[in-house]
Every structure is written in structure tokens, then in C-alpha cells.
């Protein structure tokens, strides 16, 4: 016992205990991973993260609301006048040219969730109005009156055919 108390031995003991504590700590942290991961969307939810939409039924000037990841997405078939009005301005609160918000000028695809508090805006006259707090958006989904801080989000989507898009994958 007495010889165990030499400084060298104490040092070795401290190192051993520290190393074991570290290895044990890493193990506990790793063991938490599956528990945390289990609360993320499961694979069947992830599979629904993509929505395919057939655009052929939407007449010019018409709007369709589809669900994507549980959220409403507005798909607007814009008329030439609406396109012209949208390209003329650059937005007010969150300036952004219309060309950056659409892939084809006649099709506007935006997530229908107000960037303020998450309500769904209503289509009213040109653009949308959110009835929760009175934010207004134009026909490019850009905010024209607060309190919303940002334009309506454009989801990742791409055209698989002339009248078919897949939302969820760019």
C-alpha cells in the first residue's frame, strides 16, 4: 500500500480514471444518438416529403393549393398582366426580382405560410392578405405590407414535363 502512494503511481491512477471516464462519457453520448434520432421524421414520413403535381387543370388566372410536407403550397397560373405587374416592381420590404422567384414566368409556386407567424394567407384581389396580422403579398408572393418580414418562401421544385412539377426536390 505504502509504495502505491508514490507520486508516479498516483499520476498513473489519475490518468487511468480520467481515460475511463472519457471512454464511458463517449459511450453515454453515443447511446443518446438513437434516442434523439428516433424523434426525427421516420422513413415513411420522409418518403412523403416530395409531392407530384399535374398542372394541366389550372386555367390562366387560376390558383391551386396542394399539400407538401403537410404545408399548403400555392400554384398560380399567372396571366400576362399579372406577370407584367410583378416584373415591374422589385418588392418593398424584402426586395427580390420576380425572375428569381419563378422558373417559368406563368407559373408561380410558393409555400402558403405567412412568414410572420405561420398563418395561411387568403387570395384577395391581386396577391394575398394574411388575416392574422394583416400582412399583404403581391402576385409574386413578395411582401408589400408588414408585419411579415420576408417574401413567401419558394419551395424547391422542378418541371419533369411541361405541365408536371415535383415539389420537394430542386
Amino acid at each position: 500500500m505504502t509504495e502505491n502512494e508514490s507520486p508516479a503511481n498516483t499520476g498513473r491512477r489519475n490518468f487511468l480514471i480520467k481515460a475511463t471516464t472519457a471512454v464511458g462519457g463517449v459511450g453515454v453520448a453515443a447511446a443518446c444518438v438513437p434516442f434523439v434520432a428516433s424523434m426525427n421524421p421516420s422513413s415513411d414520413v420522409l418518403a412523403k416529403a416530395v409531392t407530384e403535381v399535374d398542372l394541366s387543370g389550372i386555367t390562366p388566372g387560376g390558383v391551386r393549393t396542394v399539400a407538401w410536407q403537410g404545408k399548403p403550397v400555392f400554384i398560380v397560373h399567372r396571366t400576362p398582366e399579372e406577370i407584367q405587374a410583378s416584373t415591374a416592381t422589385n418588392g418593398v420590404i424584402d426586395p427580390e426580382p420576380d425572375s428569381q422567384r419563378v422558373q417559368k414566368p406563368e407559373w408561380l409556386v410558393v409555400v402558403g405560410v405567412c412568414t410572420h407567424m405561420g398563418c395561411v394567407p387568403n387570395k384577395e384581389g391581386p396577391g394575398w392578405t394574411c388575416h392574422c396580422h394583416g400582412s399583404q403579398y403581391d402576385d409574386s408572393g413578395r411582401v408589400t405590407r408588414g408585419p411579415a418580414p420576408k417574401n413567401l418562401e419558394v419551395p424547391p421544385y422542378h418541371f419533369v414535363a411541361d405541365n408536371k412539377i415535383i415539389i420537394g426536390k430542386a
Partner: protein
Amino acid sequence: MNALVKVLVLCCFSIGAWANEVPLEKVNVATDAVTISRGAEDLMNDCHSCHTLKYIRYRDLVAFGIDKQKVDAWRGDQAMDSPLLGQFSDADAMQSFGIVPPDLSLMVKARDGGSSYVYSYLLAYHNSPDGVLENPVYPATKMPDALGIASATDAAQRTEIQGRARDIVSFLTWAADPHDAERKRLGYYVLGYLIVLTTLLYFVKNQIWGRLK
């Protein structure tokens, strides 16, 4: 101690096939993608017209690595996300067989003997001397001899059917537990880690207890 022995005794029993009167033919299922894909194809041809696999979706097959074009051909106009439901309605099945064919997703796990049971069952069909089709593994079965083993006479044909049965059972084994390979892989890491940790704890324990006179 008693509990440990009991577990061991029970393990021996559940592996042994004492519950079945007919001894089962042991089969070593394959876990490689090639065999399992082949099994999936045979299953789609030979079994899927009557049997469902409702816990497997077409996208699961693609995710596992089965050729997407094949899966597209199997699913026809069904969505990638839809499960492998049969082409037979339950009512039709009742009329033809007097029974709804069981779902196959968990078949390997749902029988004593597991994969060996399914394999032996598929290959147990034979004609009795008076020409009646029999299956000693499950005498009450309503299923016809799907693989045609009873009418196969020459050795080459029988070997081909046995291979097909093994492929199908391999696929069903995967279908019953798609995370099996992942689980075992993770298991080796966990065990390796635990052995290191336990060894370290052993040394720490010795050092701490060494302080005692």
C-alpha cells in the same frame, strides 16, 4: 443462475424443431443483394398473385438495391410508396381457397423453425401413391404446389426448384427484418466498445481496491 440455465434450455428448444412432427430441412439463407433480388423476382412471379407483403413498400425494394426498372414493372401504376398488396381481393381468395392467404412480411419470424420451416414447407409437396398432393410439413395447407416440386422428376429440375426456394426464403428473411444486417454491424461496434470499457473499469477497480490494506 437458475434463470440463466432456463434461458439456455429454452434457446435450445426454440431452435430445435420438436414442435413439428416432420424434421425440417435446414437452410442457410443468403444475405447478398443478388440472391435477394432473385428471390424478390421469383416471389413476384410465384407468390405475389395471392399473397400480400403489406409491411414492404416498393420504395423499400429500391432502397435495398433491387433494380428500379424491375420494381417499376412490378408496381405498374401503383405509387412507389404503396405496399406490396396482392392482386387478389380477400373475397376472391375466400372463394378460390376457402381462406385468405396469409401476409408474408413476417412469415419467417412467425413460425417455429423460421426460414427452415418456410423452405421445408415449400419443398415438402409430393404426390401420395393414390395421386393426392400432400404436404407433411403443414398437412392442412390450402396452397397449391407453387414451385412445382411434386411434379419435378429429374434431378436437375429439382435442384433448380430448391435453388428458387432458397432465393425466395432469403428474400422473405430480409423482408421479415430489413435492419438485420445493420443491427449486426452495429452490434460488433457496441460489443467492441463495451469490452474496451469493461477492461478499463477492471483496471480502475483493481487500482481503487488496491488502496485497501
